[in-house]
């Protein structure tokens, strides 16, 4: 048990275990709760409190309850039903860091009460990836088998219907090591993340092709998970270790002004902001270096286009697609670059979805007790997609794509895949 602490500063400076006095940023963030005027705008936007009484809403759980979280975490089970999607922070007109406060509080509670085995497992996608990849056919069969899934649900609590990606049976890293990049004047570092490495290596290969087509030599340093699933599940120390290892790999590759681009929108957001604001790693030099140079792939391509440097030799794409900007992409605060890029692809018909969250929120929707909630959250989006009857459903986040595809039966792809096709690559 921690000793009693008297001041708010002391409280916020250490409970998560980082070195004393370093977490000035979280102090400021927690302090933002004093700007809450209880206007309830966050509540109107919260996808989760809108479908379940188990989560009473960001205002109650965030700025209101935080006042009572002093030296002891408040044993409030409802906190666990926050998905950390971050939409409350996005809509707050007073700058209260609601989602950040809640994610920290959730971690403190778990620090005291312990983290279930299930959450320790699903928050380590690289571990699953390493184990599943060499045995992909068996692993995929296992995850498709109803009886086995039922057994998994009963034993560790991963919902039997929750979407599980298929192991590709090969890794993008292996491909990248063998792939010789054509000479180019400009260089870019590619942060592919674990999703593309183990489950969607084709997406990563397409990214390399699109970047190469635009005159970039693509550098793929060895890399691992960004730690976001660990952070979401309250395992902050482990998450910090992953961040440090990752930025340790990326920073040397991006030594000068070389940009780092990523195709996993939640993982690029982790590097840009969340590791600094939620894990309290502000000021760590390698993270700062990487953070300042990291772009989401479509943000990067649109910036190229703004400068007149994006190749627009697109062929007509005679398709109707829907586009859902996931909550984590919206967290970047750069709008929806995918829509601006889709607009220059001839023939493409795009239906923009009006939904803030698909419900899965990373690992939230995998959990037995939360899967039904995540399906209710996504219901509006799924309905929109089904009514649009698109050829493809585009979305920037992998876990959202898997969730959308499972729920709607519509193949869900990263927006980059559309551009890849428009460039005429097979």
């Amino acid at each position, binding site marked *: 048990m921690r000793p009693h602490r008297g001041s708010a500063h002391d409280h916020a400076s250490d409970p998560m275990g980082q070195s004393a006095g370093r977490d*000035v*940023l979280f102090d*400021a963030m927690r302090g933002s709760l004093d700007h809450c005027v209880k*206007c*309830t*705008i966050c*509540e*109107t*936007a919260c996808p989760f409190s*809108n479908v379940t*009484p188990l989560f009473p809403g960001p205002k109650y759980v965030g700025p209101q309850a935080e006042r009572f979280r002093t030296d002891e975490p408040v044993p409030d089970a409802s906190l666990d039903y926050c998905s950390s999607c971050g939409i409350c*922070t*996005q*809509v*707050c*007109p*007073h*700058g209260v860091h609601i989602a950040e406060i809640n994610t920290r509080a959730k971690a403190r509670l778990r620090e005291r009460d312990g983290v279930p085995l299930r959450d320790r497992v699903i928050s380590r996608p690289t571990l699953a990836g390493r184990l599943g990849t060499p045995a992909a056919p068996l692993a995929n069969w296992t995850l498709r088998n109803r009886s086995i899934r039922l057994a998994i649900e009963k034993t560790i609590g991963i919902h039997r219907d929750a979407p599980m990606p298929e192991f590709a049976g090969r890794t993008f890293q292996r491909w990248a090591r063998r792939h010789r990049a054509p000479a180019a004047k400009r260089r870019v570092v590619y942060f592919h993340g674990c999703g593309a490495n183990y489950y969607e290596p084709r997406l990563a290969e397409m990214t390399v092709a699109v970047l190469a087509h635009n005159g970039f030599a693509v550098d793929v340093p060895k890399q691992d998970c960004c730690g976001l699933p660990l952070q979401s599940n309250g395992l902050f120390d482990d998450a910090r270790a992953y961040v440090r290892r990752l930025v340790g790999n990326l920073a040397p590759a991006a030594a000068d*002004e070389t*940009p780092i681009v990523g195709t996993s929108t939640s993982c690029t*957001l982790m590097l*840009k*902001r969340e590791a*600094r*604001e939620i894990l309290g790693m*502000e000021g760590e030099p390698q993270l*700062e270096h990487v*953070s*300042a*140079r990291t*772009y989401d792939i479509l*943000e990067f391509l*649109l*910036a190229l286009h*703004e*400068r007149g440097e994006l190749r627009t030799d697109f062929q007509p794409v005679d398709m109707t697609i829907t586009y859902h900007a996931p909550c984590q992409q*919206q*967290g*970047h*605060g*750069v*709008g*929806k670059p995918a829509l601006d890029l889709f*607009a220059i692809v001839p023939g493409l018909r795009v239906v*923009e979805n*009006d939904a803030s969250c698909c419900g899965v929120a990373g690992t939230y929707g995998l959990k037995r007790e939360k899967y039904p909630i995540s399906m209710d959250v996504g219901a509006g989006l799924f309905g929109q997609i089904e009514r649009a009857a698109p050829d493809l459903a585009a979305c920037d986040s992998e876990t959202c794509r898997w969730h959308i595809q499972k729920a709607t039966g519509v193949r869900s792809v990263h927006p980059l895949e559309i551009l890849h096709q428009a460039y005429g690559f097979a």
Partner: protein
Amino acid sequence: MSGGADRTTSPGWAAPSYDVLVIGAGLAGLTAATRLAEAGARVMVLAKGVGATHLAPGTIDVLGYAAGGDRVVERPGEALADVDYGHPYARMGADGVAASIEWFRAQFVGGPLGAYGYRGDLGQNLLLATTVGAAKPSAVVPETMAAGDLRDGAPMLVVGFQVLRDFHAAYLADNVSRGGVPARAVVVARRLDGRPEANSLGLGRALDDPGFRAEVAAEVARRLDGAARIGFPAGLGLEDPHGVWSDLQERLGRPVFEIPTLPPSVPGMRVFRTLRDRLRAHGGRLILNSEAIGAAPAGDRVETVEARAAGRTVAYRARWVVLATGGVASGGIELDSRWRARERVLGLPLAGALEPGAPRFSPRYFDDHPFNAVGVAVDDRLRPVEPGADPVYENVLVAGATLAGARPWKEKSGDGISLATGHRAAEIILEEER
């Protein structure tokens, strides 16, 4: 947003370019942006968060009181002719206000809320009960509120819900009765969705469900006792308010109306949703959590505006900037403890700023507080001016509660000013670009 806000994007990267940047996503900003996008402009709206739409009752109060708040206005169109030269309405006159109202009402046609729409114009003010039962003059109101007009003396029943802790039906009805319209209250004991308490948002969600609606209607029908019309807390449905309202009228066999609640305002959410949907449909863009924090002026023009994004700031370029960040209440204007007032994005000159030591507040809450007079003065083209001087910037227009010269609390003119000046700002830009 982040502690890294001092850091800008890497050199040479990303200065997205637009025809118009609109700063603020309240009624003024959304109106300007949607009107511009509709006319073909490339528009980006940057906002710190969702604006005051979700807090305001959703009525368009153009001018409820004249002569400094002392005289009730019955016909706002006529009263608009008498506003001071410094008042925002003097920038477009009654015709301009009427044009903005016509435009606003048209936005709901074919919008995301089905047949839901607005009623009323500048011809006359309705008198609607507030959430405490006071009478408030409003010119343009949701169709779902019109039957609550207190100029009509027909007796009413006010329906409360036990779980809706912020809506006091008996208190409301009592005040309405004192005002001369017979009113009684009933309280429905039913829980919403298993929750021990709810707000108007929860009520709206529950009433979207036909089963719940039928139960409520049956309970209210048993207790009508001669009421000619029935008022509900403003939360008659989130998805299909016209359908929910019509269904209740049919079931109860008499007019039904919504009464504004404490926040969140469901009718206000409908305004936001409708305008955002129209903005998107016309290709306009909106980024929330993207607080504009500064600009790089070049002579008499603002060419770029910096706004917060994840872990950095982004510089946006535009030919025009519409500033609609709100007044003191919304944080568009900051007033510190040393009497210093500051317009937060561009540092525009402020009219009505107080001398150090001068009183900032009046003793009574609803009095005219001196600090409320602080705002940005503009010329006839809504460009910010130093009092009595030339425009500070040629390509910046100001709309909504940031403007000086009005007393919206006393006049009941806030939404009217936001709508009319937002619309006018768009029209001016369209004229200049023609």
